[in-house]
């Protein structure tokens, strides 16, 4: 079986729908280690991958006025037990343009794999960019994932990121996203991760609400058990009149796991406002008892609560 087919199989196992790679209306890019092994473009979207020694540099541009109808599917992965993949993305979403991306990152056999992503994203005025990233890691925990993004959002625009790592061991995870938001624009960042074994999770998501009436929501849902550890740093700064932000972090721990949440809220304009809520602890006892009163055993009740939170 060739690498392409193996990647598609891993993508399918991660929850992806392989038919998208055959559909001419849907743009896609498949990268194994530092090789581009599949790609397809649609009108209005420029996607230029360039292979490098350790990964791929990608230029992505959505032309002014174009809204890409179907989500662009990206599939990144390393199939062998060892390897490195460095993805550098430069994305420009021009004025009045929009795109949704669905990225699957698959490392099913990883024992010693490093996956780095370094993204620079510029979103023009009246534009939108939605980035959904789903990871599938296998059970050995031998992956180190280091995603980093620097994002600028123009006026009357929208950025949404959804990161989820719910299948397989996390390994070592260190996410760092920073964004600047101009007038009347919206930032929404969500991360959902389930760590176990001796997984290590660190998330830093930051947004600077620079424009009038800009909005920001940073949301994280983390569950850790066994000896896993997590640290979530959520930073929001309201720097303009009527800018509003909210940080919402929930972490559930079981066993010997440890969790830490550090919400940082800054307000530098008297008409700005940022709120935050953070809850860390065991699964709520009352929730467990309510489900048990419907006939669920304790363990199943806890599983249901955790999987609901991460859904």
């Amino acid at each position: 079986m060739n690498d392409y087919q193996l990647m598609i199989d891993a993508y399918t196992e991660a929850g992806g729908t392989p038919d998208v790679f055959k559909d001419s209306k849907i743009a896609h890019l498949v990268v194994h280690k530092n090789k581009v092994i599949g790609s397809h473009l649609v009108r209005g979207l420029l996607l230029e991958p360039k292979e490098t020694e350790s990964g791929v540099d990608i230029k992505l541009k959505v032309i002014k006025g174009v809204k890409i109808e179907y989500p662009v599917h990206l599939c990144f992965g390393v199939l062998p037990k060892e390897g490195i993949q460095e993805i550098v993305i430069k994305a420009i979403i021009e004025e009045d343009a929009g795109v949704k991306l669905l990225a699957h990152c698959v490392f099913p056999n990883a024992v010693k794999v490093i996956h780095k992503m370094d993204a620079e994203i510029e979103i023009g005025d009246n534009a939108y960019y939605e980035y959904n990233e789903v990871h599938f890691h296998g059970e050995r925990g031998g992956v180190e994932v280091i995603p980093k993004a620097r994002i600028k959002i123009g006026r009357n625009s929208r950025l949404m990121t959804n990161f989820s790592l719910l299948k397989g061991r996390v390994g070592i995870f260190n996410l760092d996203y920073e964004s600047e938001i101009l007038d009347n624009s919206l930032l929404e960042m969500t991360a959902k991760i389930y760590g176990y074994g001796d997984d290590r999770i660190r998330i830093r998501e930051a947004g600077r609400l620079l424009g009038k009436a800009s909005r920001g929501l940073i949301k994280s849902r983390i569950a850790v058990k066994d000896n896993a550890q997590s640290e979530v740093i959520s930073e929001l700064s309201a720097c303009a009149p009527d800018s509003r932000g909210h940080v919402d972090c929930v972490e559930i721990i079981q066993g010997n796991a440890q969790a830490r949440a550090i919400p940082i809220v800054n307000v530098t304009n008297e008409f700005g406002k940022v709120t935050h809520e953070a809850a860390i602890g065991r699964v709520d006892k009352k929730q467990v008892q309510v489900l048990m009163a419907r006939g669920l055993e304790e363990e199943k009740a806890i599983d249901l609560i955790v999987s609901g939170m991460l859904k």
Partner: protein
Amino acid sequence: MEILKVENLSLNLEGRQILNNLSLSIEAGTIHSVLGPNASGKSSLAFSLIGCCDYSPQWGKIFFLGEDVTHHPVYQRAKMGLTLAWQEPARFEGLTVKDYLSIGIKGKNDDLIKEALEFVLLKPEEYLNREVDKTLSGGERKRIELASVFAMRPKLAILDEPDSGIDILALDHIIKLIKELKKRGSTVLLITHREEVSSIADKTSLLCSGTIVKEGDTVEVGTYFKERCIPCPTRIYPSGENDK
């Protein structure tokens, strides 16, 4: 036939005597009300009966369907057909109304779930896929709680203050739901501090300071409660209400 029998139940929480040598007997197929003022031990009794972990009695026994269930965990009692609609129901992120109502039902039965929602005046098409989280109002969450017990068809449904947080218009339907539960074969233990709600019961027990002080005909116990317990003569009120 007796479905639930409580013998000399005593519960002490953090040094406070919450239930005190309480005995109670409930006949199958009836609506039995436990009426009592605030802080008389009504919810604690409900938690003890279903087996909540912090409410294990220090003394006494609980028999359900003739079996001693005093030390059975919550889920085991639920599987036998004993459940509770909570006065303040929990919220669950990511769990839909449909998921929540399905938990207590043996086999998936969409019609049963829809019917239960309609009984509490919630349109299934609007609610089935909503999450049982903080986006629901207190009243909506409460109705969903009652619907989930209704869908479960328990042998004994304990309803803890089913009328609290429900608007007046919906109250009639809640009463209709309680009567329907009985009609369909469930026994209902109705916990309330309102005499007008307990009036639908076949029998009423009056709870005071953790013990049953009067039991029998609903009208008689209700009248006694209204005349003698409001305001409670043994409780110290902050603004001299005892004098009223």
